[in-house]
């Protein structure tokens, strides 16, 4: 049961371009939406996160846009750099009884120099 749908599966962007990764969910009980970044051979690490009472959150070149009514959220990487090449996972947390973290399927980003 895939509760968080992520697209695209892979993405190639030129250096300096904007990388956009999209996620959608169905469960309205989700109340926390983090993004994780994973480099080869490493475990995922938290990149940026947002709560649904906020429509946008920006940290440096990384921005999350959140559309509560559409149940969609996206990650924008501005001025993409080769060092951003990694796999990105969106996630959602059910803030009810379980607080369980549920991941999307991941997006492999390659930023070409």
């Amino acid at each position: 049961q895939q509760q968080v749908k992520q697209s695209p599966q892979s993405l190639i962007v030129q250096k300096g371009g904007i990388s956009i990764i999209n996620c959608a969910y169905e469960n309205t009980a989700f109340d926390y939406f983090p993004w994780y970044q994973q480099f080869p051979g490493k475990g995922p690490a938290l990149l940026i996160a947002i709560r649904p009472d906020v429509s946008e959150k920006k940290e440096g070149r990384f921005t999350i846009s959140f559309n509560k009514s559409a149940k969609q959220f996206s990650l924008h990487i501005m001025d993409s750099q080769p060092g951003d090449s990694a796999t990105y996972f969106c996630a959602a947390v059910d803030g009810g009884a379980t607080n369980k973290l549920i991941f999307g399927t991941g997006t492999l980003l390659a930023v070409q120099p």
Partner: protein
Amino acid sequence: GAGVSQSPSNKVTEKGKDVELRCDPISGHTALYWYRQRLGQGLEFLIYFQGNSAPDKSGLPSDRFSAERTGESVSTLTIQRTQQEDSAVYLCASSFWGANTEAFFGQGTRLTVV
């Protein structure tokens, strides 16, 4: 320790053997997850421990897989009668209780079944 520690980092085993993977979470973290990641693939949820609550085992792929956690400390993931399709990286993550908390991942155990 400073982070989530997993051991061994690499494990090669023969088909049909049992293996045990270990995860030492960050001290004080009540939540602990196990995920499986096949080469180039996403994170496949296996099991979730949260404090003293009954674990969420909904992701375990077969009865050959089991996991235990002692209180809020070490967890072990056991795979019995390993098969070649079990070859993957097994990742453990831990976090404090609460929705807005960060999950910290270990480096994973790379399991190869030959």
